């Protein structure tokens, strides 16, 4: 992608965040309040009411939710982005990957706030910073690529079947529960668990918990596998968007 489009992506991200901030009284405070309320809800239901009581459940849950929310918002915002910009696409020639990329970057900025908040909470709980924190860099980078990959794939199809947008949120909800965000997957029999672990999100969240809770380096082989899957999906998503670009402009208004 040419440098010029990178400039467009960065400035659009700034514009997106700035416009979002201007649309409410509390502005960017919502980037922290909203996910905090979300976490509080899960905490209330699963830790207090249902007593999903493994030790360390609070950090387990918060790490899972933080990494999950980033992926989820990137996919649901990025996935709609091409469909939402059809009017613009009819007027000007642009590489359409710009639109999902902007949404994902905007969500990444918000994720940075929540991650900082998470780290503060973890330190308060007694999980101290340690050398394996450097392992977070590749883990987060792979999650970013995987998020972009899924968002591109969704974004490529929604313009043809806008009805899918009613399904996406539900599917994401299901994926969350089978990704070990709220419940540990340990209770699942090992031969079944193998299938669950094909899901890159499971590996990424595991890696996050290893680092932040147990000061363990991530499972590099698993991370390598997830990287390969992510890059393959990313290439496929990019290919599909480019291939379908001439067809998006011919869709009915």
């Amino acid at each position, binding site marked *: 992608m040419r440098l*010029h489009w990178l*400039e*467009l992506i960065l*400035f*659009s991200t700034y*514009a997106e965040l*700035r*416009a979002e901030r*201007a*649309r409410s009284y509390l502005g960017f405070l919502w980037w922290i309040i909203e996910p905090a309320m979300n976490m509080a809800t899960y905490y209330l239901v699963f830790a207090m009411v249902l007593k999903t009581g493994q030790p360390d459940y609070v950090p387990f849950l918060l790490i899972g939710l933080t990494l999950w929310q980033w992926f989820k918002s990137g996919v649901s915002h990025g996935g709609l982005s091409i469909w939402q910009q059809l009017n*613009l*696409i*009819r*007027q*000007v*020639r*642009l590489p359409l990957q710009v639109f999902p990329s902007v949404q994902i970057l905007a969500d990444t900025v918000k994720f940075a706030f929540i991650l900082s908040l998470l780290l503060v909470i973890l330190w308060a709980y007694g999980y101290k910073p340690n050398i394996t924190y450097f392992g977070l860099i590749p883990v987060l980078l792979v999650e970013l690529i995987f998020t972009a990959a899924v968002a591109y794939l969704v974004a490529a199809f929604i313009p043809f079947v*806008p009805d899918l947008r009613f399904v996406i949120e539900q599917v994401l909800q299901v994926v969350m529960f089978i990704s070990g965000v709220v419940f540990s997957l340990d209770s699942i029999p090992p031969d079944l668990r193998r299938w669950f672990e094909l899901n890159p999100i499971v590996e990424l969240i595991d890696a996050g918990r290893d680092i932040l809770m147990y000061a363990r380096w991530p499972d590099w082989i698993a991370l390598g596998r997830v990287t390969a899957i992510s890059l393959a999906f990313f290439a496929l998503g990019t290919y599909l968007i480019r291939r379908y670009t*001439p067809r998006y*402009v*011919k*869709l*009915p208004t």
Partner: protein
Amino acid sequence: MNEPIIELQNVGIAFNAQLRLGAPRFWALEDVNLALPRGARLGVVGRNGAGKSTLLRVLAGILAPDRGRIRRGRASCQLLSLALGFVPYLSGRDNAILSGLMLGLRRREIERRLPAILEFSELGDFFEQPVSSYSTGMYARLGFSVAMQVEPDVLLIDEVLAVGDTEFQQKSGAALRERIHSGTTVVFVSHMDAQVRNVCDCAVWIEHGRSVMQGPVDEVLAAYHAAAPVAEVAQ
């Protein structure tokens, strides 16, 4: 005549009429032949729904033909798009940068032109305010000032020759006329004979998605009106 910048041969464009399985496609352009020489100012005439705007978007490279062939020389083609990609909550300045980037300018090129945009749009302090607080006229002034910063090899214009209130109409009209007559290649879609005669040195007549005739403005307009129902000529 010199080598054409863009040449269309038997070009057809089909759209999906609606989102429904098995919905029929309709051909907005059926069979268009056209040669656009470098430096030409080509007028596109034809009735409502003849496919004039579709043709412009083909020339802009936004629509790819479903049949026929396009040959392009090395040239940038751009629709004159007003307020492209404007975001209501952003300031005039930010919108100018955003819109400029979408129109293909580099960030530093736009930054360099911001003073000119500010001056031409006559927005003053409002330039730093969100465009959602603008009046219609101010919005149009900013949109036009930004659009004029892009200098494509082929400028594509759909009807718009001037915007804003009476005073700004004169100013924007003059600026656009100057651009048009500065040697750029221009394609201009219009319903008004007088405008086409003013702007263009050749014309093409599109009827039901087919190019009927291309040639000197007077000949094409004469043939077009000879075939047109009287009621429509009145305009």
